[in-house]
């Protein structure tokens, strides 16, 4: 069983008490326990079981405007005594930074909403095995599938965040995740693809058959890919890739990138950065949401933010430190976004495919090709050639490139938004990107 609130709170208050006794003027601590149990299958047989029990603590101490932090997985008081003493010593020797401080008192989350983030259900390994047998049977149905690897993980976590201003709160969360990676082969090629489902509640998890079938079909359709020539062409991003555009956007509006001056979106608040129809929300209080939270990692309350309204950037993602530096109040985004999504567009998936006589549908990108300083984007890609709304043939060994400043202005969204991840986008079309191939 994951450690209860009382155990975590006792450890947290021990640390805060000791830090104060040793001379800290302020301190904050997070204590977390996470227990995961995973079963992996390969080619319809048990391959691996993995149980992990992680207990950890991290404490930040302040002496005036000086700050330092330590973390440890050894929570015995003997060890904590040594570490906190070391932390205080380091704090004393670290130069002052005028912006170091705990959040303003009036910003702390006061009441916790019930967000339905914890499912008591415990799924035994045999039940996981039953699910995986069904999944792998579906995934390996077609003879072209030559390898299947599937996995089922149950995770239960609990944490307490406490600080010397009296904030002390935390809650349990759970997740159940199933995934399947399949390899398909024909005379000319070998390809890999996957499908995945992750939910807070076991009963919401996708059906095993469905998951296996999807993984297999998505892999088989990639066989015998072609390489195409270099040209300027409209790109359609599958939902699983489109969400990456939002993640880059989120990094570029984080207050740390803004205050350091290392973002292409610096000074763009109240300016139009997307096309007219684009709205972006970050909504922390979605029931069972994979990114839902009652407060951020500093204890600051988190309200829903409409980050982009009709194409206009409205907010940065602000934490306490960078907020003070920018002379802005924290909006509870220390640690990033919660449930971040593009609002649906007003065109359906089919019409989006049909909107150009020729386009590329991208299902996977590789490489770390997003530069948030310049906005430049260049990644390896695989996908399909679309002609007149039809999937013609698979393509690979190409790159797609552009600059986010232009890409954002040229986005059209379909109306097929789903909440499958913490960050979600409908299918996305971007005009004017360059494909490099032959």
């Amino acid at each position: 069983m994951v450690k209860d609130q009382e155990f975590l709170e006792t450890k947290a208050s021990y640390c805060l008490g000791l830090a104060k006794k040793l001379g800290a003027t302020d301190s904050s601590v997070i204590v977390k326990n996470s227990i995961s149990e995973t079963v992996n299958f390969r080619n319809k047989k048990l391959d691996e079981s993995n149980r992990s029990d992680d207990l950890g603590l991290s404490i930040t101490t302040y002496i005036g405007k000086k700050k330092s932090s330590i973390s440890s997985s050894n929570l015995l008081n003997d060890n904590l005594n040594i570490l906190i003493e070391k932390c205080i010593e380091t704090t004393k020797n670290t130069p002052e930074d005028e912006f170091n401080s705990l959040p303003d008192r009036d910003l702390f989350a006061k009441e916790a909403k019930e967000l339905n983030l914890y499912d008591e259900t415990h799924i035994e390994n045999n039940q996981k095995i039953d699910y995986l047998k069904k999944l792998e049977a579906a995934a390996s149905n077609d003879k072209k599938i030559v390898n299947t690897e599937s996995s089922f993980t149950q995770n239960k976590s609990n944490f307490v965040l406490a600080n010397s201003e009296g904030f002390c709160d935390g809650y349990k969360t759970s997740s159940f995740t199933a995934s399947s990676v399949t390899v398909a082969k024909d005379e000319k090629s070998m390809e890999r693809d996957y499908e995945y489902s992750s939910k807070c509640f076991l009963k919401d998890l996708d059906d095993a058959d469905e998951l296996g079938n999807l993984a297999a079909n998505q892999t088989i359709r990639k066989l015998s890919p072609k390489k195409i020539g270099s040209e300027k062409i409209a790109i359609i991003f599958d939902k699983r890739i489109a969400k990456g555009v939002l993640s880059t956007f989120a990094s570029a509006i984080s207050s740390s990138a803004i205050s350091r001056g290392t973002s292409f979106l610096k000074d763009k608040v109240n300016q139009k950065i997307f096309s007219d129809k684009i709205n972006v929300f970050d909504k922390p209080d979605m029931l069972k949401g994979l990114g839902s939270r009652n407060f951020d990692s500093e204890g600051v309350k988190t309200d829903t933010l409409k980050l982009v309204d009709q194409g206009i950037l409205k907010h940065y993602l602000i934490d306490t430190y960078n907020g003070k530096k920018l002379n802005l109040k924290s909006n509870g985004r220390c640690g990033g976004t919660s449930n971040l999504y593009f609002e649906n567009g007003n065109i359906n998936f089919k019409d989006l495919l049909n909107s150009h006589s020729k386009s590329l549908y991208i299902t996977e990108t590789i490489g770390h090709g997003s530069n948030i300083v310049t906005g430049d984007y260049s990644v390896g890609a695989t996908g399909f050639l679309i002609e007149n709304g039809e999937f013609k043939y698979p393509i690979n060994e190409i790159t797609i490139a552009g600059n986010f400043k232009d890409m954002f202005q040229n986005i059209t969204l379909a109306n097929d938004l789903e909440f499958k991840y913490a960050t979600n986008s409908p299918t996305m079309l971007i005009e004017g990107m360059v494909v490099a191939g032959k």
Partner: protein
Amino acid sequence: MSHMSNFFEKSDVSRKEAESIISDTLQKCDDGELYLENSKSESILLDDNKIKNSSYNSDLGFGFRAISDEVVAYSHSNEISKNSLKQSSENLKSTLKSVKGTYNYEIPKSNKKYYDNINPIEQKSLNEKIKILNDVNDYLRSKGDKVKQVTANFLGEQKSVEIIRSGGETLSDVRPLVRFNVSVMVEKDGRKETGVYGVGGRQSYDSYLKDENWKSVCDEALRIASVNLESKPAPAGEMKVVLGPGWPAILIHEAVGHGLEGDFNRKKTSAFHNLMGQKVASEGVTIIDDGTIDNRRGSLTIDDEGTPTEKTVLIENGILKNFMQDRLNARLMKTRSTGSGRRENYRHIVLPRMRNTMMLSGKQTQEEMIKAVDKGIFAVSFGGGQVDITSGKFVFNCTEAYEIVNGKIGSPIKGATLIGDGPSILKEVSMVGNDMMMDPGIGTCGKAGQGVPVGVAQPSILINKMTVGGTKL
């Protein structure tokens, strides 16, 4: 042998009791061990003119592994106690019901050590580290108004590991690791570019930074940033590519290294699985993976299963010779471990991984290569890369590159992704340089969610055909 960490000192379980739980759990398994780890690490970061972060981490835990045939059962915990070990043992037994293997007691021995038993964190005081970071900031900002942002950091670690096998055989290692990084952002006429450089390895910070050597790290970061300020859009399409020596060898790491790891080949999911003994590269191309180079970031005295590391020849004169193996994949493929079994820490299972992956020198000069190109690019430095093992397609991102026109190096070009096909790219290598160089000691390789420190090396090479992912058609 020196036991630097006595894992049982403050525990309610004695070494003897632990050994008996291990032997009892593993007796009918084919392999397995208890892996204990105690690591101490620090991070000190200067950013935006201030010391932003000084943090220290102390991590302790064990991972208990039992293997029967192809099935791996693993359980880990932070708590080294009788209760916790027994619970893990029960968990392993419940996965591996009715096992009937024969435990393989054999493990090679070696007295060689590739780094000293030091704690780099303690070898330099916090104040000295802070002073260097502030000096870095002042030095770079004194280079002119165009310098708009400076980030520099120290990362240091000492990791003590102990592997206890069934029957009580114990192997241990103490591993120091440091890294020093500088990143600088410059601005000119509203245009911003960054340059990053770093050094590191398994020695004290001073081995890399003495005699104000940190200045050369700063100079290099600033040089890359300044070059990029003048860069123009990169071309798009297939063309010839000359790679500089050293760090660009992450091409080798991505293009062929991962595909030669034992697990993907046992599972036949690597594009290389049926190519053993065949020609996979041009003549003159020899690639090794070496864990035995003194003090290198990717070097290990023993791997995380206790096997001494070695120099493994992967490709010899174009012919595929060996895969990199851990004990599990070696047994299932009826070969021996190459000392390549690694894990990020006790939370993770062992996988076959790279150490220092190197393409050895040939005879040509870089000058000859440039001269041989009518239209192409010269890539000097990279950010990072990635590979799809199954299709063999790999990418990496240039952070410093130039166009080549009619045998001459031209203007710098913007960062672009290069994409190629692993199994065929090495056949496109038409010249191998005489200037092999190691990388500066900054690489971390990710696989299955686990990051491990690695090294790479290569001479300059000329590749006949690669796709450059620029925007200029």
